[in-house]
C-alpha cells in the first residue's frame, strides 16, 4: 500500500503557538484514522514563521529562495494539506495569504484540504467560511466539510449539551480529511507538456 503524505501548514507566530498546536492535533487525528485502515503515513509541518522573510523576498524578486521552493514543493506534492492560521484583523493572517499567493493556482487542484483557525474569541469562527474556504475554492482544492476553529477558551473547556468540545471537532475533521485522502488516487508527477508547433499553428489556422 502506498505511503500517504500529509502536510500541515501553520501560520502561527508564537512559540509555543496555539495555531501549531491545532495543526498538530488535526494531523494526529487524521493519522490515527489512516493507521486504523493500515495506511502508511508520512507527516510534515511547514512553519510559515521560518519562511516569512523568504516569502517577502519572493514578492520583490519574483522567484522563491531554495528554502521556500522546497516548502512550496512539499505542500503541492502532498496527498492532503492541513492549513491553519491565526485570525488577524478579521481574516487569515497576511503571512498565511502571502504563502498561498505563491502557490501555483493549479497545484492544489483536487487535493483534500482541512482548514483550521485560532483566535482569542469564538466570535471570529466564521473566518473559516468567509475567508479560508473561498481561498481554497479558488485553488480548486477539495476542502472537507468540517473546519475547526479553536478560541482560547476551547483549550480549557469541554463541550456542553449544545456543542461538541474541541477534541470531538478535531476528530471529526481529521476523520473526514483522512477518508478524503484515502479515497483519492495517487497523484501523478506532472511533466511540462510540449504542444507541437504544428498544433500551435493549426490552432490559429495558419498551417
Amino acid at each position, binding site marked *: 500500500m502506498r505511503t500517504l503524505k500529509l502536510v500541515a501548514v501553520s501560520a502561527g507566530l508564537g512559540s509555543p503557538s496555539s495555531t501549531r498546536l491545532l495543526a498538530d492535533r488535526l494531523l494526529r487525528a487524521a493519522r490515527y484514522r489512516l493507521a486504523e485502515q493500515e495506511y502508511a503515513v508520512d507527516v510534515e509541518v511547514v512553519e510559515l514563521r521560518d519562511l516569512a522573510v523568504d516569502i517577502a523576498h519572493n514578492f520583490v524578486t519574483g522567484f522563491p529562495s531554495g528554502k521556500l521552493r522546497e516548502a512550496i514543493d512539499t505542500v503541492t506534492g502532498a496527498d492532503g494539506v492541513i492549513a491553519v492560521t491565526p485570525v488577524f484583523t478579521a481574516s487569515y493572517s497576511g503571512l498565511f495569504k502571502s504563502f498561498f499567493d505563491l502557490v501555483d493556482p493549479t497545484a492544489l487542484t483536487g487535493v483534500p484540504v482541512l482548514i483550521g483557525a485560532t483566535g482569542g474569541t469564538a466570535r471570529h469562527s466564521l473566518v473559516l467560511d468567509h475567508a479560508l474556504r473561498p481561498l481554497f475554492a479558488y485553488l480548486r482544492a477539495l476542502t472537507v466539510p468540517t473546519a475547526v476553529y479553536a478560541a482560547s477558551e476551547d483549550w480549557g473547556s469541554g463541550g456542553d449539551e449544545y456543542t461538541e468540545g474541541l477534541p470531538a471537532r478535531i476528530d471529526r475533521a481529521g476523520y473526514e480529511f483522512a477518508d478524503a485522502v484515502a479515497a483519492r488516487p495517487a497523484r501523478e508527477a506532472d511533466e511540462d507538456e510540449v504542444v507541437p*508547433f504544428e498544433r500551435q499553428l493549426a490552432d490559429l489556422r495558419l498551417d
Partner: protein
Amino acid sequence: MQFGIFTVGDVTTDPTTGRTPTEHERIKNTVAIALKAEEVGLDVFATGEHHNPPFVPSSPTTLLGHIAARTENLVLSTSTTLITTNDPVKIAEDYATLQHLADGRVDLMMGRGNTGPVYPWFGQDIRQGIPLAIENYALLHKLWREDVVDWEGRFRTALQGFTSTPRPLDGVPPFVWHGSIRSPEIAEQAAYYGDGFFANHIFWPKQHTEKMVRLYRQRYAHYGHGTPEQAIVGLGGQVFMRKNSQDAVREFRPYFDNAPVYGHGPSLEEFARETPLTVGSPQEVVERTLSFREYVGDYQRQLFLVDHAGLPLKTVLEQLDILGEEVVPVLRKEFANLRPAGVPATAPLHPAVTAAKEA
C-alpha cells in the same frame, strides 16, 4: 562566440547622488555605451523596447540606425522586439531597412513583453500573448522570405499581393532569436524555425534557463535542423567588476539595494548566489560565466547587462573597459577551447558581415 551587452534603457535615479538623468541624457548615454562596446572589441549591442516610463527605448530602429552609422563592426540587436504588439509588417520593413543601412550587422530577438497595459495601448489582449507571438512571427517570417505575400490571420488585417520593402539585404533575412524566461511554447517556436533561443537568465535562478534550453535543443533536433548541441543558444548575464572583489561589492551595493525589479529584497550576496549576478573581480566573472555552459551546453552568444539601476555613464564605460580588456578575451579563448568540433561558434552571420570580416 559573440559577446556583447544588452540594455533595458531604464531612467533610474543614481541612489548615491540622488540625481536622475533626463531622457535626453539617457538616450545619448546609450549611444556612448554602444560606441564604447565597439571600441573595446565587443561584438553585439542590443536594446530593449518599452513603451512606458521610466524607459526610453520606444523606437529601437531609430537608435540602432544611428549607432549603425557610427560603428563598423558592432552587430545591432534587440532585447527584445515586441512581436505581440508591433505590427509584423512594420517590423519587417524597419529591420530590413536597418539591415541595409548597417550592411548586414543586424539580428533581433523576439519577446512578448511583460508590461500588461502595453497590450491594450496597442489594441491587443494580453491573454492572447502566445498566439500573438506565434501568428505575428509566422507573418514576419513569410514577409522576409516571399516577395509577394497573401495572408489572413486572426490578429491583423489581411494582406493580398503585399510586398514588404526593402527586401532583406542580399535576400538574407536578419537572424532571429526568440527570448523567453519560462514559456515552453516559445522554445518550441524557436526550434521549429531553426532560429536561436535566448534565455534572459538574469534576475532568476538557473532552473528555468536550464529547462528551457534543454527543451529547445531537443526540439531543434526533432525538427531536423541539426543535433541538439548545434542549436543556437544565447544567454544573459549581469556583472559588476572592480580589480578587487570587495571594492566591486562596496561600490555596487547601493545600486543593488535600490534597483528596480529586485531592490529592497534579498541581500546582494543572496541574489548573487541564487541568480547569475556576479559582483567581483574580472577573474570571478570569467569563472562564473564559464560555468554557464555546464547547464546550457556550448552556446553562441553572451550578453551582459551593465548599465541599469542608475549607474552613472562613467562607471558603465569603465565596466566596458574591464569587459573588453580582462574578461571577454579570456572567455573567447576558454570557450573556444571547450567547444567541440561541429558546434557553431556563432549564430549565422549575414554573408555581407562574413565577407567584410574576410576582406
